[in-house]
Structures are given as C-alpha cells and as structure tokens.
C-alpha cells in the first residue's frame, strides 16, 4: 500500500514550561530544567520529588470551572490546536484522547475521605461522576463539537497511539478532521506508585546519563489536529507537518521493565518506517522516550542501533517537561515537529556524563535539515508506540513553511 501522509494543521501544548506551543518549545529549544519540588498536591512522601508541575490553574486560562485538571489541560491544548480552524461547516471532527488518570485526581481524594469517614459516601456524585477516562474525552468532544471519539489508555505510550489512531480514522474516512490529545495531571496514585517502584529520581531525571536512576513525573497536555488533504485544502490551512507512519507492538517480556534488547521497540519502529515508506536512513532525528530509568534508556538505544545502521541524533525532553505519562507522546510530538520546522535538534536537559552501557550521547544541533523525525513512547505492560513525522508530503508537492 502506498504511503499516506496525513496533514497536521494545528497543534497545542501545555506543560510545566507554560501554556502554548511556542512557550513550551522555547523551553525545549533552550534545554531548560523545568522541574521543581512537588507542591501542587500532597503526595505524603517524606521528600518532595522534583516534578514538571503546572502551578498556574488551567481553569484560569479557560475562564471557567472544569471537572478536573486532566480535562482542563486537555481543553487548553485542544483549543490551541483548533485555533486556526474558524469555519468547519460540514467537516466531521473526531477526537482520540489518551489519558492514564482521567478524573482520578478528584476520585482519589474522595476515596481517601471515604476511608476516614464512611458517611462521606453521600458525596459520591460530586466526586466520582467524572472518574472514568471517557468523561475527560466527552468534555473535550463537547467543547469542540466533535462528531465522535475514542478514549484510550495504554500508560506512557498512549499519546502516540492517539496520533496513530487519528491517522487511521482520517484514512478510512470516518472523519475529515481528527484531534489527537494526550493529557495527564499529577495524582497521588501516580506519584506514590512510581515511588513505590523506586523509579523516581528525587533530584531530577538525567536522561541517558551515567548517573541516571529514574524518572521525574510531570503533567501536561499535547494536541495535534490531523486533517484529510481535502479538508486541509477546504480550510485553507497549510500543514505544519505530516503523520507518515505509526507502529505499535508489545514486548511480551515484563509488565514494567522493557525488553533488554528492545525487541518490541524495534518492531514498532520498523512498522512506523514501513508505513511511512522510508528506509531507516531517512530519519534525521529521534525524539526518544528517554525516561532516564537505567533500563529504559539502555534498551531504547540498543533497539535503535538494531534498526539504524548509523544511529541518528537523538534527544530526551523529560527533564524539561517532566514525564507526562499519557500526555508525553502527544506533547513531545508537538515539540518534535517544532524542532523539525525550526531545523534544530534540542539539547537534553539533565544529561552530562556519558554512559558506556548506553553507548551513545544526545547530540543537540543548532542547525539541522530535518525531513523526518521519529518519536518513540514506551509504556507499562511492554507497550510500544512509534510515529514518524514528515516535513512534507510524499509527492513532494506539499512544501513546509
């Protein structure tokens, strides 16, 4: 089947760096350290880990109260992605939303109070009505007047899977436009959960660094608006980039640790490349998952070396943005596209010392010609996602501004 590159006509982002794609990318471009001691929630940990937290309430940006922070962040990103689309008329819009926590930021508080005081159950309606992830998607779908939606949750790989599913929904004609959104807010469950797994670096993550010991959690949202070629033309929107290929796989190795040789990651990347109709050598830059766990970073580079004869330059954005879980794939995809458009390979904040076991170092460039970027995301359950983004259509007729 010939490659089918789907235009991206809008993007949105919100992270610890701030609100808006440009603001977030400024931080990524400069390789800023975006982490600060956790203060937006009381995790109960003795030491507050450094996190990529968003202290400014997204409700103040939206100008109204929203059911929970995950939803509010998703709405902020979605609104920005749709900002250029002023008159959709009969074009059908779909939404694929990725989240791991959904409304649990409220329901976990309710559960804590319920454990202390059983009578608290009478407040169930107020606190748990929006617990389900589908409630987050519905809120976004309602705001953007979507014709339909899907809600997916595959841990840290979900955001990229949302992009891939949106591509397929455009290709099969279900929608003319499809918004892929990834959103997660920090929660007691996730902060304490990763702490219990001893996967958190309390001093801030150091991706690919010899001293790396774990992740730094973050919160945020990323949104990409995909369109059929016909819809993009009708709207008069020049594509900012294209979704060229999506690959998905499972490691079948362990529920939390990646396969040491990255076999599943290799499969996902090869699938994405095959769908994009390109050889590995066409990739100019890898936006790595790069979570800074000892296992992930080593396995990811090992997997990339197996796919690429010559390892392309790569970076991790986790120290700048935090690991935003389901949002990470979508949010970092937006940043990767910005990097592609600007012709830079961003620095990797937190990296300083070469690690022999990784055998490769992030390689920032202030000037690079980037035609194709590969974005990786890997999640619990051995879940792997890879998406190839292109700066132009396959036919060469579309020209990136």
């Amino acid at each position: 089947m010939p490659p089918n590159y789907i235009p991206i006509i809008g993007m949105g982002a919100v992270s610890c760096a701030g609100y808006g794609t440009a603001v977030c990318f400024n931080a990524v471009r400069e390789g800023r350290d975006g982490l600060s001691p956790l203060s937006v929630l009381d995790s109960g940990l003795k030491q507050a880990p450094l996190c990529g937290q968003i202290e400014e309430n997204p409700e103040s940006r939206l100008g109204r109260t929203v059911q929970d922070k995950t939803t509010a962040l998703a709405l902020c990103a979605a609104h920005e992605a749709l900002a250029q689309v002023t008159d959709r008329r009969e074009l059908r819009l779909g939404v694929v939303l990725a989240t791991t926590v959904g409304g649990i930021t409220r329901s976990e508080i309710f559960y804590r109070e319920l454990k202390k005081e059983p009578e608290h159950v009478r407040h169930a309606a107020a606190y748990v009505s929006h617990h389900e992830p589908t409630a987050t998607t519905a809120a976004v779908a309602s705001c953007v007047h979507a014709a339909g939606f899907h809600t997916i949750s595959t841990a840290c790989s979900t955001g990229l899977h949302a992009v891939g599913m949106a591509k397929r929904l455009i290709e099969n004609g279900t929608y003319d436009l499809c918004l892929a959104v990834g959103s997660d807010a920090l929660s007691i469950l996730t902060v304490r959960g990763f702490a219990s797994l001893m996967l958190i670096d309390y001093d801030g993550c150091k991706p690919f660094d010899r001293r790396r010991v774990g992740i730094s959690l973050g919160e945020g949202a990323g949104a990409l608006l995909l369109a059929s070629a016909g819809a993009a033309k009708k709207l008069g929107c020049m594509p900012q980039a294209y979704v060229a290929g999506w690959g998905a796989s499972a490691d079948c190795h362990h529920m939390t640790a990646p396969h040491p040789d990255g076999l599943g990651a290799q499969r996902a990347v090869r699938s994405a490349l095959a769908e994009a109709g390109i050889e590995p050598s066409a990739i100019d830059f890898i936006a790595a998952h790069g979570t800074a766990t000892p296992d992930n970073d080593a396995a990811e580079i090992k997997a990339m070396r197996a796919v690429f004869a010559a390892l392309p330059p790569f970076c991790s954005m986790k120290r700048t943005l935090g690991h935003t879980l389901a949002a990470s794939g979508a949010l970092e995809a937006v940043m990767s596209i910005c990097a592609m458009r600007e012709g830079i390979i961003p620095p990797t904040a937190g990296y300083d010392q070469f690690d022999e076991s990784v055998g490769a170092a992030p390689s920032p460039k202030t000037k690079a010609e980037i035609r194709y970027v590969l974005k990786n995301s890997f999640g619990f359950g051995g879940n792997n996602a890879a998406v190839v983004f292109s700066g132009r259509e396959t036919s060469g007729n579309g020209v990136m501004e």
Partner: protein
Amino acid sequence: MTFLPILSAGSVVPSRDPSWTDELPPPMKRRDARIWHLAYVASKRAMEKAKPAPRSIICGTALGALDETCKYLDGVFADGFGSPRHFIASVHNSMAGKLALEFKINGPNLTVCDGQNSFASAAAAVSLLNPDDFPALLVAVDENIELLGRLLPHLSAPCRQYLREGWTEAAVAFILAAPAEKSPPCLTAAGPAPCNGGEPQRCIRERMLATGLDAQAMMPIEATSGSFIQPAITAYELLAQQSRGDHVIGSYSPSSGAAAFVCVCI
C-alpha cells in the same frame, strides 16, 4: 461499514460459572489481579477454538482494574505504603499487557476506556489495525467490586439508570479476522458519538443511519444495558445461540453522554 469476521469467541461470567478459576495456571491464580484472571480465561477459551493465534490485542474496559487501584490506595492512605504489585495492576492497560505476556502476542496492544461504550469503541478500533495485525483478539472486561455497590445509591440519576445494582461482571473475547465483505458470523461497530442531550435510543439510530445501517429494519437492543459489560455479554450469547440475523447492540454511557453500537451478524 467494515465487517470483521468472527473466528471464535469465549466468555466467563463468574456468577454463572463458579468453577471458572480452575482454568487458571496455578502461579497466576495465586498472585495476579482478579480482573486479569477474567480476561485470561475468556481469551483462552476463544483461542482454543481458533487458529491461527491472534497477532494483536484490543481491550475494552470501563473502569479497568478498579479493585487493584483501591488496594493500592488503601495501602498508601492507611499504611503510608502502597504495594508496587497493586500499582502495576491498577493501570488500565494491565489486562491487555498481561494477555500479551501470557499468550506471546507481540503486535499492537490497545486499551479503550469508554464506559458502557467500551466494547463498541474497542470493536470499532479493531478495524483501524493493519491487515498484518490480524487475527485480532478483542476482549471486553469489567469487574464489579463491593465499593461500587456502596457508591451506586449515591450516584447521579443517569448513572443509576444505566448501572443496575449487582450488575453482572464478566469478560468476553472474540477472535476477529481482517475486514472483509459482510459474511456471517461477523461484526461491525461504531464508536461513541455525543447524544447532545438527546434520547440514547434515538442517538443510536442516528449513528446507525450515519454509518449506513438500516435503522428501520433493526431494533437496537441493550440501549439501557445496566452494566458496563452487558453489550459484550449479549453479543456473545447471540453468537452462542446461533441467533440468525443482524443484531444491533446499542450502548450508552452516562459519564460521557455518548452512545455507540455493535452490530453482530449471524
């Protein structure tokens, strides 16, 4: 619409099948999450009836491993320490990940969470896979835990209308082949669409019309399913009973205000 041939199906409904845990491998029986057990047995039953083995997994679940989530938070709030085992299991896609691990299915692995529409949404997502990713294992699973029974009387009226007390928990699995011309047994599905305050049954009919199905000839059933997993149970039972015809199984989620459907052709 895209029709997905049904190669086989399996289910487990604990209230009707008290000895279902006998099919669990002893190590799994001792240590893993109960919802994983449900998904495993249903999938195993489906896979025993069909070759070749599936290459991908799409799981639909409304609440995921809620019991594990509660157990994890119990540890955090009561003891200041949550078990990592419970945290790992609490993640929505843990069932699909466990199935991949147990059955060595290394293709695409997605988990869809759309409330009572999860089965329909997951079935619609199957049609997005590449041809190489088939056969696909479509699993719907939801567990009913004691906490939900306590919460139900205090939830909003719409939630109480669409979730009956003591609702049946279950897991249902289908092995589906790549999209083809309609040839029973097969299924097709449409994912959630906002009802915008409209009546769910009407919303389902509009959805059917939008996707080209004859809404006059087919009466949607299970629009008020009363449980997260009932649409999948109904689809399985129709297939098991060889009920000839095209059956539209509608669903509605009060959490999202959206409706969806699966059409099973037998």
